[in-house]
């Protein structure tokens, strides 16, 4: 009878087994070098972090109000982000008597606080305001951050925003967005005779300042990366034109001198140029103008309306809206022009694309089935996600950290539009307080 296995094949198998055993021993020896057993934790719960923010201590007799105000702003900012859960001060066990002393952590653990903020506000002899804070990890019993800031007393709100950002950054690991401003179009008066004024305010709705008088129509204001300048479109008697406005000086100038309408302006990430649409007959194409040399470069040349251009964070690409395919859709192309690639393919009309400062998403307005939605998609068009939809939602703008989007919304029965924020996961929708109706918001970069 024939043998099924020849001696040579046996040898091979035996050798293979021996080799395998040797390899096994080798693996084990390296494992022994590591010695400690390793486990993977890949699941968790995203929950608001419970944080205790006792009222900041006043350094002197007249500082109590400011200290209270700073505490309230920090609490409101952190709560508004949706990522923190400020604990009701009525539950506090320990009464913080000094910012320089280590808190009694068990007292804070009993009320389930995981982070604790202590601080003090002092008006100094030179008239400046000193604000200091410490951020504590209650469970680990460690200080996570500690800073002090000096400013003029009327700037106390900004100090509170800066402290909020420091706490936010330390605990979430990403940049904050509280020390920022919003420019928007303030709308007053009856619907058929609206007065529209360019307005600026802090992101929390404080310090409202009107930048134009309301004698002309203003649209699409956008911040420069310097945060000192705004570009926007306005029209009074003549054609709509793109303007540049210095917030501090109030100085205003027309961007370029073009024969037709110029509209939908936006700064490049370096702030050196403005990209916009210029009317050419019944079409519109994209142009970029260098603000120093005033040289204008054409980027598109189509028999369609190309508008709403926006640079990517690195300035290498542009996303824009075009109806070259029949109806408005979003396209992406290189910053110096060339072939454009359509990225929106869903049902309906896509408009007002805006690139996240983080670079990971493009936000847009989508119109379909008699609804307006605000959504995000990846720059290659994948992963489209609708964040909110309604009767009329429009004009998304990103917070500098790319986590939160602000937009304006007009309900069916509403007499006018209002501002809202929502995070890019579609959670934590919040109304932004404005003095009256508001539209076309633009979020500034961080001020500091």
């Amino acid at each position, binding site marked *: 009878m024939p043998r*099924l296995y020849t001696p040579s094949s046996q040898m091979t*198998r035996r050798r293979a087994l021996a080799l395998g055993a040797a390899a096994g021993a080798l693996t084990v020896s390296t494992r022994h070098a590591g010695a*400690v057993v390793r*486990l993977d*934790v890949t*699941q968790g719960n*995203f929950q608001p972090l419970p944080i205790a923010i006792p009222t900041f201590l006043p350094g002197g007799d007249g500082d109590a109000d400011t200290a209270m105000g700073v505490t309230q702003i920090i609490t409101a900012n952190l709560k508004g982000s949706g990522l923190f859960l400020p604990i009701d001060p009525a539950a506090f066990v320990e009464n913080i008597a000094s910012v320089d002393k280590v808190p009694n952590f068990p007292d804070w653990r009993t009320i389930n606080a995981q982070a604790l903020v202590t601080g003090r506000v002092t008006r100094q002899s030179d008239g400046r305001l000193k604000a200091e804070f410490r951020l504590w990890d209650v469970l680990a019993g460690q200080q996570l951050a500690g800073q002090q800031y000096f400013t003029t007393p009327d700037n106390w709100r900004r100090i509170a925003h800066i402290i909020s950002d420091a706490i936010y950054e330390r*605990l979430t*690991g990403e940049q904050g967005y509280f020390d920022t401003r919003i420019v928007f179009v303030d709308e007053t008066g009856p619907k058929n005779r609206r007065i529209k004024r360019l307005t600026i305010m802090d992101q929390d709705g404080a310090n409202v300042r009107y930048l134009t008088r309301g004698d002309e129509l203003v649209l699409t204001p956008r911040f420069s990366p310097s945060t000192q300048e705004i570009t926007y479109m306005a029209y009074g008697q003549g054609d709509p034109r793109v303007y540049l406005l210095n917030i501090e000086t109030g100085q205003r100038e027309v961007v370029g001198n073009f024969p037709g309408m110029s509209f939908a302006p936006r700064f490049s990430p370096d702030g050196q140029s403005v990209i916009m649409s210029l009317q050419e007959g019944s079409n519109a194409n994209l142009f970029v103008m260098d603000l120093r040399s005033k040289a204008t470069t054409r980027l598109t040349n189509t028999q369609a309306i190309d508008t709403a251009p926006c640079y990517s964070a690195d300035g290498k690409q542009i996303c824009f809206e075009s109806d070259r395919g029949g109806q408005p859709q979003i396209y992406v192309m290189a910053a110096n022009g060339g072939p454009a690639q359509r990225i929106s393919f869903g049902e309906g009309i896509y408009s007002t694309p805006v690139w996240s400062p983080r670079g990971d998403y493009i936000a847009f307005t989508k119109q379909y089935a008699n609804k307006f939605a605000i959504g995000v998609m990846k720059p290659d068009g994948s992963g489209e996600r609708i964040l909110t939809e309604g009767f009329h939602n429009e004009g998304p703008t990103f917070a500098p950290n790319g986590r939160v989007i602000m937009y304006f919304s007009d309900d069916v029965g509403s007499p006018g539009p209002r501002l809202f924020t929502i995070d890019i996961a579609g959670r934590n929708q919040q109304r932004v307080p404005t003095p009256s109706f508001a539209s076309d918001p633009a979020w500034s970069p961080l001020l500091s």
Partner: protein
Amino acid sequence: MRPGLTISCIGHAAALALGLVAISAQPSQAPPVQSLPVQFISDKDFSQLTQGVKNAPKPKADTPKPLADKIDAPKPVDQLAPKVADKPEIKTETAAAKPQPKSEPKPADKPDKPKTPDYKPDQIAQLLKKDAAKQPPKPQEKPQDKPQRDAPKFDANQVAALLDHREPRRQMAAAEALNDQPNLGAAAGAAAQLSQSEIDALRARISQCWNPPAGVEATSKLYVVLRVQFKPDGSLARDPVPVEGTPSALGPALAESGKRALLLCQPFTMLKPEHYEQWKDLELKFDPQELLGG
């Protein structure tokens, strides 16, 4: 009418009488069923039983195994083999090979899954064969060689002698250590002692308590490894220390979130004190990628 009734009565009476006789003649007991020894084992014991370690010594053919085996297992093979040999028309290799794999694994697998293949062939080879050629130690090769050579030398007396060897095995199975001899297998690390259920329970508890920092993104591929030392009661012996991680501005926030999870949820009572040596010092890798769908 009347004869019909009479016939019916007689017929029924006869059937009844026959039935009584027939039923009473049957033994009323059920055939005695041989009882099977059953042992309840915990999941931990099972994971130990099936556990292998990579540095186990290679099984040697010559050394007699202290754990005796189901030596009777090969019997059916021996009986089957001659049948195959009897048929003159089956001469191809494939035909000879076919019946062996079918019959061989069955008796081998049933009584003792992890161990039988190691011992049985050697014993058979030594006891049944006077052949000068030594058998290779590998169990897979045996079945092919054996029936061809062993079949004519089959001796019922020798098999009976082998059956005596079952005694030590039973004692071993009832002993405290289920697997006192390491055998080759996958290196699943500490599972040899620290059971999978304990590990899973620990992991589930930590996951419940872990609130990853909001800044983590699916694209960032961020993780951190914390070295955690426990007290015997399952609480932390000292603060967890980051030992490895992706360099990032987000790193500290991620490490602290893991630390908070451990501090918040200690003590971890699912870790059994008898395994303390295994879990007193662990490395926990906090990796939010799966959570973010990355």
